[in-house]
């Protein structure tokens, strides 16, 4: 008998069908991964097991845990089950912990909920658990003093505190860096073995799934399209959606060849300090060095990738290149002209650069129409096009990114995430800049949409001489869109070189660690 058995389970929230005829089984000691794109119903499946569905949910079918029907259980029985028989880990470690309670107390709380034990003994066990998940921290620390990875470990400690039979992990490493991700995944695997737990893991990342799960369940629009043991599925995919998903995950583009060209962007010894709050009442104000002696260049028409983990200084570098903030030492020039010119921006330099940001939902003023949104860079021109020329420019920009001219009168909320990134690219292209900075521009997108946007970028390179700096934490993406790669760590560029050289023969230990930590998608034969 399976530990967890979900059978013909359907769920509707406020009349909208979310899940349809879902069947999943998890055995003790087994890792089952549910994967799929956003809106596929992965997370709702997890919340269904926990009985933590939002208001207005109506479900039918069967969820059996260890022979007990959860859908028939009372709220009191469910409370008894949560944290005790089933533990759960969530995606966002930064907000998952109570900010005004110490981590020791939060871990001890799980034990106190489910066992008759003194507060003192529960605390002592919490200390052991915090050690077991790999933290060397006093239990009296508060969540805000911990990094994201550390907080996720605390959440894991809470989830496994009373040795549940089943652990549910909902995108447990999505918000974390690759190196942290690798360690957390390792921890989870170790716990599964040690406790003989079942692990139901929900993730959109197929590389993580492939490397970890015993069984894979692929979901699309609330239905299971395919489920099989990992090796079987990787060897012999049946459903076209599964195939498309794996294909998009490992999507590669081909960039047009290019010859060496003179430098366009040139950065030398760039250093950027941010002031920190005073530590003493008097004395010098300490500062945080976000960029430390950064030097690099981008040639005309060159496609350069920049990889690094969160907090490495990527965003600071973006702002410095765009001339939005002053730097404390060094210089950044575009064709010899400094990009930062104090309070009054140098428009002749600015109009040769544009940027595409990560979050398609915050990149646009919700109160303006597309026409106004994408023509904002015209502000940089001395004589911005008017009437017919302006309309032609708008039409051309929208067409270039695969949208229709009639979209110009719409508001941004009428578009999907992928379409919004296209609009962001249209905004960047409209003044035909020579350099575009893609700041994690595809990181928030689902794999299939991401593949399309990457294709679009490759196409644009074919139709014009475009140089870009493609900043991403995702090594596989950078590998396909860059001629050359810079690796950044703690405000410094630790290694740079031609893309394939870096990936095949990394020199710096940090680069080696990054590449080793990145989950690999296995080679899949696309025989059919």
């Amino acid at each position: 008998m399976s530990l967890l058995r979900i059978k013909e389970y359907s769920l509707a929230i406020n009349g909208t069908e979310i899940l349809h005829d879902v069947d999943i089984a998890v055995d003790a000691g087994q890792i089952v991964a549910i994967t799929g794109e956003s809106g596929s119903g992965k997370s709702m499946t997890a919340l269904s097991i926990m009985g933590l569905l939002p208001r207005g949910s109506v479900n039918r079918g069967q969820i059996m845990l260890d022979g007990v029907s959860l859908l028939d259980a009372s709220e009191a029985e469910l409370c008894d089950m949560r944290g005790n028989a089933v533990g759960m880990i969530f995606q966002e470690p930064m907000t998952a912990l109570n900010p005004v309670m110490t981590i020791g107390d939060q871990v001890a709380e799980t034990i106190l909920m489910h066992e008759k034990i003194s507060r003192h003994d529960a605390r002592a066990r919490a200390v052991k658990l915090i050690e077991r998940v790999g933290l060397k921290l006093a239990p009296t620390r508060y969540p805000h003093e911990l990094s994201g990875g550390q907080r996720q470990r605390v959440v894991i400690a809470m989830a496994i505190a009373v040795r549940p039979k089943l652990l549910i992990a909902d995108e447990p490493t999505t918000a974390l860096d690759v190196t942290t991700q690798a360690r957390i995944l390792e921890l989870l695997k170790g716990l599964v073995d040690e406790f003989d737990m079942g692990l139901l893991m929900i993730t959109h990342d197929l590389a993580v799934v492939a490397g970890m799960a015993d069984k894979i369940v692929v979901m699309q629009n609330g239905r299971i399209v395919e489920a099989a043991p990992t090796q079987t599925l990787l060897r012999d995919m049946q459903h076209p959606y599964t195939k498309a998903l794996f294909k998009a995950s490992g999507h590669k583009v081909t960039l047009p060849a290019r010859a060496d060209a003179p430098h366009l962007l040139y950065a030398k010894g760039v250093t950027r300090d941010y002031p920190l709050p005073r530590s003493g009442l008097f004395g010098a104000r300490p500062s945080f060095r976000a960029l430390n002696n950064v030097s690099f260049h981008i040639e005309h028409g060159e496609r350069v990738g920049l990889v690094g983990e969160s907090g490495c200084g990527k965003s600071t570098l973006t702002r410095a290149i765009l001339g939005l903030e002053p730097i404390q030492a060094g210089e950044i020039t575009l064709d010899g002209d400094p990009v930062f010119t104090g309070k009054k921006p140098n428009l002749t330099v600015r109009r040769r650069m544009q940027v595409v940001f990560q979050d398609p939902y915050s990149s646009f003023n919700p109160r303006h129409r597309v026409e106004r949104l994408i023509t904002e860079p015209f502000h940089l021109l001395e004589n911005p096009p008017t009437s017919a020329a302006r309309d032609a420019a708008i039409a051309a920009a929208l067409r270039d990114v695969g949208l229709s001219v009639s979209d110009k009168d719409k508001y941004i909320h009428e578009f999907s995430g992928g379409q919004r990134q296209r609009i962001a690219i249209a905004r960047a292209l409209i003044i035909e800049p020579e350099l575009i900075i893609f700041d994690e521009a595809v990181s928030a997108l689902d794999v299939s949409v991401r593949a399309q946007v990457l294709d679009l970028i490759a196409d644009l390179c074919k139709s014009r001489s475009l140089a870009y700096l493609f900043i991403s934490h995702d090594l596989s993406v950078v590998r396909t869109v860059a001629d050359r790669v810079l690796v950044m760590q703690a405000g410094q560029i630790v290694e740079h070189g031609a893309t394939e050289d870096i990936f095949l023969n990394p020199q710096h230990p940090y680069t080696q660690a990054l590449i080793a930590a990145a989950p690999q998608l296995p080679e899949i034969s696309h025989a059919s």
Partner: protein
Amino acid sequence: MIRYTFGRLSSLVISLIVASMVIFLVIEVIPGDPASFMLGINAREDTLAALRAEMGLDQPLVIRYFNWVLGMLQGDFGNSWTYKTPVAELINDRIWVSLPLAVYALLLSTLIAFPAGIYAASRRGSAGDVTIIGATQLGVALPNFWFAMILVLIFAIKLRWFSAGGFPGWDDPLLAIKSLTLPAIALALPQAAILARVMRSSLLDMLGEDFIRTARAKGLTRRQALWRHAVRNALIPVLTIIGLQFSFLLAGGIIIEQVFFLPGLGRLIFQSISARDLIVVESVVMLLVFTVIVVNFAVDLAYAAVDPRLRSRA
């Protein structure tokens, strides 16, 4: 924590200094010659001279300001021109009505608002929640001085449970509290309505947070999650409102004193305004503002007690 306290303390001092300058400016500089302003156009020259000397108007502005501040620091607020007695004595007689009234009202407001807000949030959408929302909607719209009049009409004139006004002094504390009860209720209910609404919405915000879901996943019931995790976090915005409310209760008390004929700062200040006794007005206003600033300082310290993020930062 020490740095946080010190930072708040320095901003407390700066606020007090600037506030005193503003008050000094309005009272002693804007009228031109405060002495002739106080005495009117028909004043005799020797009375004018006497008042000018009393107020030290022959000295430069800066010296006068410093003398005023230094005097206050030693408890010397100058002499009232109309009462011919030290202002400090006048205030001392009256502040023991106004301050207890404000504190009494704040206690009542909190005691009513917390349970009401928590109950409403924990049973969102229930009949109890709807009733509480409706009651707070009315409470927020209630003019407190009119409410005071209605209370007098019902409980003093019709039912004769309380006296319609006046204050017997603190010789008999029970009697004193009893005579402050109707005024305190009149002050507290509208404020309690606001506080309950803030408490409820703050709690509902917290109940939507990720860490509540985490707590529920540990096996806490909805109510346990509310009490152990949501309430303390919800207190942070609620404390802000409590701090603001104290200043409203203190100022609002001045009005309510009029309804109940209480011998507090309100009566003193209105008599002084009509008598153009600027010295008294200046001192009482400074005292009110001082109290408000000190209470806000206390609220800032309370934040740090509730929120560990404040303790470790700056």
